[in-house]
């Protein structure tokens, strides 16, 4: 699904914000992306949702080498990726329904299906009474739910979320995480950048942990315990998130 090999990213002539990043995400895996502020989480996500190209190294997405993908091929790849942006990135002049409808309309979905699907998912995230509200009239949490609804409306193969529960209370945060879990169980690869340790503890998934631009992959807690218990150190488990050359530090 995603493969990074010795990837580095720098902005302009600045020092690299990401260094020697190597990992592989298997299709249908779920990972949390953690790290302190400024560690490079958003930059790594930007590489994954193809907003940036790496300064060096190899990125492979959906089996395609990004170094040789042309600009013309990008829309097709991007339509397979759902993104929840940290600042929501909603279009202020459009209603909640029209914001959620964007990916479907880009894909040429018939208008009747667009309205039906978008209304359904907005009701599911608790915004059934705000279908025609513009973002400026919504609270932070409501905007976040619209952003999440938009990211999953076209059943992406890869879902990337940057602090998706940052502005919602624990109850709604948990509900949204269950939505991501649902998509993960249906085969979507999910990566969620978060600081919320409670959520990470609640959902037992491996972590991609960034520290000062370097990445390490921490396996799921349950698997670590299982390994300790069964002494099966070589068991790769159902989700292959083993680092290629990342190190425990």
């Amino acid at each position, binding site marked *: 699904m995603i493969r990074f090999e010795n990837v580095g990213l720098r902005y302009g002539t600045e020092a690299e914000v990401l260094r020697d990043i190597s990992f592989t995400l298997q299709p249908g895996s779920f990972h949390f992306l953690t790290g302190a502020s400024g560690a490079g989480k958003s930059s790594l996500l930007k590489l994954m949702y193809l907003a940036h190209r790496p300064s060096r190294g190899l990125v492979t997405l959906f089996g395609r080498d990004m170094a040789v993908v042309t600009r013309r091929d990008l*829309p*097709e790849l*991007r*339509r397979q990726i759902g993104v929840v942006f940290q600042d929501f990135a909603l*279009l202020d*002049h459009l209603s909640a329904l029209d914001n959620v409808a964007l*990916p479907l309309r*880009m894909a040429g979905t018939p208008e009747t299906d667009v309205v039906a699907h978008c*209304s359904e998912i907005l009701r599911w995230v608790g915004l059934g009474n705000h279908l025609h509200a513009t973002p400026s009239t919504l609270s932070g949490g409501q905007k976040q739910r619209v952003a999440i609804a938009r990211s999953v409306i076209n059943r992406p193969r890869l879902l990337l979320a940057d602090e998706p529960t940052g502005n919602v209370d624990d109850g709604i945060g948990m509900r949204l995480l269950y939505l991501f879990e649902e998509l993960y169980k249906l085969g979507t690869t999910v990566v969620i950048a978060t600081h919320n340790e409670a959520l990470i503890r609640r959902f037992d998934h491996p972590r991609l942990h960034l520290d000062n631009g370097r990445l390490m992959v921490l396996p799921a807690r349950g698997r670590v315990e299982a390994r300790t218990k069964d002494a099966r150190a070589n068991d790769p488990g159902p989700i292959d998130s083993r680092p290629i050359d990342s190190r425990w530090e």
Partner: protein
Amino acid sequence: MALRPVRPRSDLPLAVDPSSRFLGWITALMAFLAALALAGAMLVSDMAQRWDSGLAGGLTVQVAPMSGAPVAPLDERAEAALTVLRSFPGIRTATLLGGGEIARLLEPWLGAGAADPLLPMPRLIDVAADGPVDVAALRLRLTSAAPGATLDDHAVWLADLRSFAGAIRLAALGVVVLIGAAAVMTVVFAVRTGLALHRPVVELLHLMGATDRYVSRQFERHVVGRSLRGGGLGLLLAGGTMYGLHRASQGLRASLLPDLALQPWQWGALLLVPAGLALLALVTARWTVLRTLESMP
């Protein structure tokens, strides 16, 4: 819960852009000028066609009064000229115009007083040819048979009028081309400003998988809508102006002006002005957006 019908919407808030707010008004002005230029060209074409059909292959012989001169009376000289004309090769008919017809021809210059019998009026002979006429030989025979007779060959000044009408048509076409160029520049400016203003939204749409054509369609819909509305308004104003000029020309008692009325098909042709401007705006917007987006990552 019943769903509200989805209104036509644009992913980019182009309608509130300061640059595009004036696009409709500028297009209205351009459509007004283009419609007037085209209408003028069509009227001149009609005029030239009327001259052509009415005067081509024609000659006019004028026998002027010569008071005190030792010559035959005016009517005798006119009869002599008619005799020469009717026997000359290439002449089909030669008709002496009556006093009423001559007065009507002079009315634009002399008014109703042109019919005064006391005025020394020349005799005019309208000649129609049905083949090549040796104008020099005819002129010689006329002056010897009817002193004071002059021959006016329509072909000479008809050619001048034709070239004048052609120059007017060319000038009108030039005006339309310049208006088209101004329309292109206006749309390029509006679209580039829109792209610069909404770059973050365009980037977001790209990240969600929008193709360049998807983005350009947003601009195309916007500029075509504005152009059609502005063009329609401009055409309406031009139609009102043309109608006003037509009424004013009809009010002149002895008009030197041609009829300023357009034929129905010519009104139909003017409808193409807003449609043409909208098409030009569509092509320009698409070209500008695609070309600009190509430089984006």
